[in-house]
């Protein structure tokens, strides 16, 4: 890849200096319920936060800090395409944003004081990205100290309505339960937590790449799949320690790295949503590996998006990658399900023809077709024998293989009996 195209890809993540503060000022006057008299140390702290672009938001005698930044949105075209594709879809899908207005999608991430999920783990930074007219708007709420949780939660909730839709990475298991837990502590003074819809991209990433990637951590997915390379990134795992340092020294600069990290995270989620949707919809001229096509095919197949499953399996076959035999096998199964035994048979045979080690399952499927479809007991017997031969080649059988072997042996026995009688 040339340096130029790389930079183009990265543009969404390169911070540009045209930040807009207007919105904040407006909001400040509107949202401030109660403005307290500031002591000089509070003033100093506010100045320090201001140098990082955060403005104070008050609630009763508490304060939290909020920063809004607008970034240019270079992938708007790609985004519109996939957004339209989802709009035109008919069936439910966990990633579908069919009924979600564009501006209601919140790409959402939190930073916490620990990884445990109990009552003592606090969220100190909530960040989310929204697609707005002028680009991508990133909003970050900062818990300035542990006694200001009500202000923090209150102002976070001011930004939301019932129709908002979260897009997160592992938010279903971690971030959102954590928000709920923190909300419970201040539930008597702040509004109720709306019941958001939620798209968790971790589940999607796992579907697509769990076989390829050493892990589906966001940083690895970014590097391997989004071609996003972060320089001088503060790893998220440092968040607790950095926050503890900040709490002791009251110097917001210590958090600059983690604020930047969170900001990049939420923008990466936008990119990731585009990338995954583009792969699913096969728009935006993406080149997918056979493995990806197969994984997507499997996913669609499970969700009963049959046409799309067919499409991706066929694409896998076209790719001429070495992994495509699985696509033949899967297509064989799908054809069999539709009742087209002829096509099913061809696909199973094709799967076998390109495999260096023939797949036992294909033999068994062929045997079934021969026995029940074509009523050709001799053929069924031959395929079953081949299946058994293949099983016997593995040196040590797993318990699953042992069970399979038993089944195949029974099949052979049954077929042999049939042969004798005819």
């Amino acid at each position, binding site marked *: 890849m040339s340096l130029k195209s790389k930079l183009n890809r990265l543009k969404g993540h390169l911070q540009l200096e045209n930040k807009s503060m207007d919105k904040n000022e407006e909001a400040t006057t509107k949202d401030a319920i109660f403005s307290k008299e500031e002591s000089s140390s509070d003033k100093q702290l506010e100045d320090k936060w201001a140098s990082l672009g955060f403005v104070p938001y008050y609630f009763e005698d508490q304060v939290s800090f909020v920063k809004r930044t607008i970034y240019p949105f270079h992938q708007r075209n790609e985004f519109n395409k996939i957004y339209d594709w989802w709009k035109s879809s008919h069936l439910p899908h966990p990633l579908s944003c069919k009924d979600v207005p564009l501006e209601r999608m919140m790409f959402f991430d939190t930073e916490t*004081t*620990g990884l*445990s*999920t109990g*009552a*003592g783990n606090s969220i100190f930074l909530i960040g989310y990205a929204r697609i707005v007219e002028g680009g991508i708007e990133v909003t970050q709420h900062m818990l300035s100290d*542990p*006694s200001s949780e009500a202000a923090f939660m209150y102002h976070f909730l001011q930004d939301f309505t019932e129709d908002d839709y979260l897009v997160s990475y592992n938010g279903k298991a971690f971030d959102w339960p954590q928000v709920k837990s923190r909300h*419970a502590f201040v539930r008597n003074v702040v509004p109720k937590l709306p019941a958001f819809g939620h798209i968790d991209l971790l589940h999607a990433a796992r579907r697509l790449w769990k076989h390829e990637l050493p892990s589906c951590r966001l940083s690895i997915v970014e590097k391997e799949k989004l071609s996003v390379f972060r320089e001088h990134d503060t790893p998220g795992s440092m968040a607790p320690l950095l926050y503890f340092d900040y709490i*002791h020294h009251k110097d917001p600069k210590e958090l600059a790295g983690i604020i930047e990290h969170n900001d990049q995270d939420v923008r990466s989620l936008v990119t990731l949503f585009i990338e995954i949707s583009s792969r699913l919809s096969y728009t935006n001229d993406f080149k997918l590996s056979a493995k990806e096509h197969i994984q997507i095919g499997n996913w669609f197949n499970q969700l009963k998006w049959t046409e799309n499953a067919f499409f991706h399996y066929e694409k896998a076959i076209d790719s001429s990658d070495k992994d495509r035999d699985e696509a033949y096998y899967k297509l064989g199964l799908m054809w069999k399900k539709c009742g087209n035994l002829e096509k099913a048979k061809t696909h199973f045979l094709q799967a076998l023809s390109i495999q260096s080690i023939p797949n036992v399952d294909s033999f068994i499927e062929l045997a079934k077709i021969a026995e029940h479809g074509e009523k050709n007991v001799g053929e069924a017997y031959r395929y079953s024998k081949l299946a058994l031969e293949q099983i016997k080649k593995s040196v040590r059988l797993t318990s699953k293989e042992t069970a399979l072997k038993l089944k195949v042996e029974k099949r052979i026995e049954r077929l042999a009996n049939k042969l004798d009688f005819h």
Partner: protein
Amino acid sequence: MFGKKSLHDLIQELRTDQHVSFWLEMDEQPANSVAFPKKMDDKIKQALRKRGIENIYTHQASSFDAVLQGENIVAVTPTASGKTFCYNLPVVQRHIYNPDSRALYIFPTKALAQDQKSEINEFIDDMDVQINSYTYDGDTPANIRQVVRKAGHIVITNPDMLHSAILPHHTKWISLFENLETIVIDELHTYRGVFGSHVANVIRRLKRICKYYGSNPTFICTSATIANPTELCEELIGENVRLIDNNGAPRGKKHFVLYNPPIVNKQLNIRKPSTKVVNEIAATFLKERIQTIVFSRSRVSVEIILSHLQELVKKELRQKSIRGYRGGYLPNQRREIERSLRSGETVGVVSTNALELGVDIGQLQVCVMNGYPGSIASSWQQAGRAGRRSDESLVIMVGNSNPLDQYIFQHPEFFFKGSPETARLNKDNLIILVDHLKCAAYELPFERGETFDGCEIDEILEYLTEERVLHEQKNKWYWMNDAFPAHNISLRSAAQENVIIIDQSHVEKHRVIGEMDTFSAMTLLHDEAIYLHEGIQFQVEYLDWDEKKAFVREVDVEYFTDANIAVQLRVLDIDKEKQMGPSVLQYGDMMVTAMATIFKKLKLETFENIGSGPIHLPEQDLHTNGIALTFTSESVLKINEKALEQMLMGLAHVLQHVACVRVMCDKNDLHAVPEVKAIHSEKPTVFLYDRYPGGIGLSESVYKQMDNILSDALNYIQQCPCESGCPSCIGIAGVGGISGGEESIKRIVHATIGSILR
């Protein structure tokens, strides 16, 4: 041999046995019942009538009335007296009053919780009420957990789960805590010592969370017979309680027999090993298929008795009909054993005190105890295992040669008439308190001036702030650490880590067969140790101390192993001191350093020493409380060194045993160590210390009662029939001398104690 002998026949035979030293016949007791309380809802009455119950026992009625008046109660009831009604009836009644009300049941073990769930569910099914009761423990599947949290009217759990899964996640349990009306604590007497001190702090945390959510639950506790149920209960829950002890349940006829094995060595006063006698007695009942339970104190002895019994009766019964049951077994195995006991498939069971708790194993007819279980309460709990229903039953306690047993056998009135033990806990033990303050701060920030259920804690919180665990902001302390404190704190043992035992007999299939706390592992799982599990011998091939894993392999050998521990004591701080005759008694903080040194191989049949080996394991430190009795008198100082050493050993031996009786604790809780030249005083000294970090208040009690303990010891040595010391009194025999003159050690010990008391 023709015809089967009944239990009654065997009891008659036993009456003529010359080694029976005491026989107590406890008559049947009729039931004492009253009509259903006025406040009781008709639905409950109907459900009871459906079960053929027309009136309830007096203690059940008293519990019902007291709880409905909002009083905290502790019901003291013997085994099988229908104690579950003491809490189930008022809890159901409260639910009928207020369908939103919730109750939390706390049982010391998972097994008991399971038992109770089936029992209460059966009862609820008989009624027209919508009460959901669920167990919540480590086995509860994730998808069920959410249902339990949101909709469980009765949540049944154990203290460990409460500590590490419920309280730290209280924000997920809001509907439980907001509506919590009743907390049931069953088997109260088990919450003593270190475990009790931990649990008392868990209760403090629980009450703090309830207060936060605006509930103020009533406590219903039930306990086996102990001397101080009210005191223990008030300590544990930090509230006033009303004692309910008007037991109205009937009881069958029961025979309680003390059996002292014959003396085999007259000079040394050594008796036939109790283990052998227990084997013989148990076998006579098992051969007649009379369900028998054998209790033995140590895990090793359980396994030894088990293998002997299986051997003795293998012609009459299948091997599986006699089972072992103890702490180290994995839960599934234990459940399976409990089931087969109930079904009658298993005729005999050999157990440590794991079965003392109220796990329902149905009806056993005979209970045999290998030695005095160490406490009166324990003895009655174990005895309660025989004859839970209303027919004749037999309990036989077989004496050991040790001083405690012989003391009991000399003075049966102490056992039968004396008050049972006092159960103690020390919830302000600093180590335990700090641990739980961390958990509490994790759960909810502390405000300056806030107490921990009455305990002042600002100073500790300030310390934790300095340690950067907490952060103070606007007079509130917040948890400021990325750890999950409850995960690092175990309620069950002072030593936090357990050693996993891995059987590698089959190369391709290594399996975990059990676990053990590190302190026990030092002496039971060292390299080359023989570890017994369900009657099978394993040899430890390698103990990986860093990883806390012991790798064992099945073997078949004729011996078992027994390890020695070397102990060193340093006095850190003296809190109290008093002069006792020519001696000084001190109480304070001590550091005990223990190290396993060697192990002996002892032959299974004869206990004969057939070899030994070294143990290479790191020292273990124990910071605790203890007393030091230091000897300064001329007469003691002029005893020659060898005799002095023996005298101190003898004295330590007898003092430990007598002190355990006086302060009513288990022998393992209070250790004794003699030192010829103690580090802090350079004088001959006997130490007694609490076996748990931070102490649990035993040695302080010893300090206060030292006069009585010494005179008991003097009296006991005088009454011992031996000539010059025996294992039953001073633990050793022999002669030493003052300036070369011959005099028995027993005489010297006697004289030394005498000189203090004079």
